[in-house]
């Protein structure tokens, strides 16, 4: 087994293992930590695919941003020493059945599909290319989604403030 394959197996194993732990752990702070591991492993996968910028975004935004946000809100709303009570068996069984059925359905579909993967070398994706693409409106240009997402982020920011703000009357 080559190193590349070993790396992929490790990342995959980490992702699956800690994903499961994230959704089953009965301590909330631990769940958040396991989520962090999953996200970092995902960043590793992006590195593996030679998408360095994507990996960097994954680490800074997800691992650094969202998870920290989540942890803050956990600290605001929960007692970190509390353990969750056990989930009702029926709920677990039915949800697991639905999830497993869905996974089987998707995986069989994936395996039946014959993908025409190319061996061609990937185009280099450095900061220059990304910056030009984001600001380009011609071919390989993504200025419209870039603008749309910036407006969305602004709106989300405002709405987050408005929602979380304490209303004066109360």
């Amino acid at each position, binding site marked *: 087994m080559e190193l590349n394959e070993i790396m992929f197996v490790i990342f995959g194993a980490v992702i699956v293992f800690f994903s499961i732990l994230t959704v089953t752990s009965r301590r909330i702070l631990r769940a958040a930590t396991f989520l962090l591991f999953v996200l970092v492993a995902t960043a590793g996968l992006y590195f593996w695919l030679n998408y360095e910028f994507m990996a960097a975004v994954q680490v800074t935004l997800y691992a650094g941003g969202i998870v920290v946000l989540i942890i803050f809100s956990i600290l605001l709303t929960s007692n970190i020493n509390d353990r969750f009570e056990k989930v009702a068996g029926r709920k677990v069984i039915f949800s697991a059945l*639905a999830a497993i*059925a*869905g996974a089987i359905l998707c995986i069989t579909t994936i395996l039946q599909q014959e993908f025409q993967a190319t061996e061609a070398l990937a185009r280099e994706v450095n900061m220059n290319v990304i910056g030009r693409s984001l600001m380009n409106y011609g071919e390989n240009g993504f200025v419209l989604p870039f603008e749309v997402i910036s407006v969305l982020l602004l709106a989300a920011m405002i709405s987050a403030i408005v929602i979380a703000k304490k209303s004066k009357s109360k």
Partner: protein
Amino acid sequence: MGDFSFAYSIWIPLIPFFTFILLGLAGHILKPRLAGIIGTTALGVIFVMSLYTAYQYFFVYGMVDGVYQKIIAYNTTWLQFTDTLHIHMGVILDPISVMMLVVVTTVSFMVHLYSIGYMHGELGFERFFAFLSLFSFAMLGLVVATNIFQMYIFWELVGVSSYLLIGFYYQKPSAVAASKKAFIVTRFADLGFLIGILILSYITGTFDFITITDPNGAAIHQGSGTAFLGLSVMTWAVLLIFIGGAGKSAMFPLHIWLPDAMEGPTPVSALIHAATMVVAGVYLVARLFPVYYFSAPEALHVIAYVGGFTSLFAAVIACTQLDIKRILAFSTLSQIGYMMLALGVSGWGDHEGVGFMAGNFHLFTHAMFKALLFLGSGAIIHAVHSNYMNEMGGLRKYLPITHLTFLIACLTIAGIPPFSGFFSKDEILVAAYHHDKVLFFVEYFVAGLTAFYMFRLYFSVFWGKEPHYHHKPHEAPATMTIPLIFLALASIFTGFIPFTELVTTDGVPFHAHIDWGIALPSIGIGVLGILGAMVMYRRETNLPEKMAANLKYLYRWSYNKFYIDEVYLFITKKIIFRYISRPVAWFDRHMVDGAMNGMAGLTNLISFKIRGFQSGQVQKYAFVFVTGALALALVFIYLWTN
């Protein structure tokens, strides 16, 4: 017609319409007195316009080659359904419509003026004037209708405004009941009218009056060949139309609404239920007279006998009533019966057509003196605050003007020369004499009865024993007495209008003389009636009671109006309601409603059963969503592959 244009006459109906809009919409912000003045002024304007039109028509431009022409002063297509079916609105000027314009605007103007005094301080003063204007608009529109459909539209409008005005005191249950009764009865009759219109226009192919009534035209002879149940189709059509006219004119047996309509304010009774609206039926028959005469003579006989019977029947009832307005109402019925009879016995052309002339003549004079009687009774009621004769007496000292004018009106209706009623009634009697002796003698008798019951009313109110009044009766204000005086003068002098020169069947004037052989006995009978009333009612005697006791059954039947109302009630309540309406209502309530309620109940039940799905638990929704999405994916990827 020369170069003179009658097109301005469209404004005669339109001005009251705009007054109605103004008073109806803005009446509540106007001062009541101002609203009254606006309404009255508008009517005054069209009164003058009508007189001017009449002058121009009768004496200047109307006659061409010795014949009064039918002039279409204005015409517009109102509704265009197809190329062949369209409905016009317009103004027709011919002798009877011009005459009616004068009648309607005169009485309406007087009533408006009178109402300013009579309705003073009433709640809804401006509403009253708005309705009066609406009525004037509708009535004038009816009068000048160029086609039968326009007439029908305004006919219904008149019915509506009559309904509104009878129910003016809508807090009074009796007024509400009376207005509904009037509306339903006339509406029921109008069903006949509508069917008649449809048949008539179907067989003649037109709505237009001039085309239909042209004696030399083709339309008038259509449908006389086809027979249905022994009568020609045309006869059926005009008989059905006459049912509409009989409903509006309160001919027996559709008369029951008119006495009750006296629940409305007295000026309304004077305007609508004495002078104008109730003669619409007469006008309708007069308008279609050539059709009746040439195509459906049987229908004319029916009209004559219905008119004659109604006049007798109503006169008998009028002799026993106590409510002065009801007496006048029955008197109106009786007089309209006269007019119908006159039309019914009329022939065509020159002296043969004297009945037609007389009917219109009587319509004209009757409008004046009956309006006067009603307005006078209004003044009496205003003074005494009662409708009942037995609570009145000796009023001649307190109400001198009313007394005098009322006396003139009574003499007029009794047919005493030289008052106008004598002339018109005489012409009717002449027409009846030449045509049908039975009706002629009936009318002689009715003339006597008329004189009797009118002077019974007169003596009881103005002479007789004076009851105790709560406060001294006083003469009415000037706004009320001026119309009385005006109408009294009209009652005296309109008899000298040479109607034979103006209103004739074929438009050709003729000369008529008073037939003293008929007139003198008629005067004698009238005087006899007056004397009878004088003996019985001038001073308090026990004669009336004796008479009543002697004619016990007749008196009681007459007093109860021959139980016609009870018959109607029996038919509607006992038969129609019990055996038809009630099962239908049961079916509606239990079957139709039951089905609807059952559906609603089922929906409700199911909703309660399944409302648990709406648990508010987000994860349950998510679970359903995920499984649903998976099921759809399964179906579309593997099961439904083609």
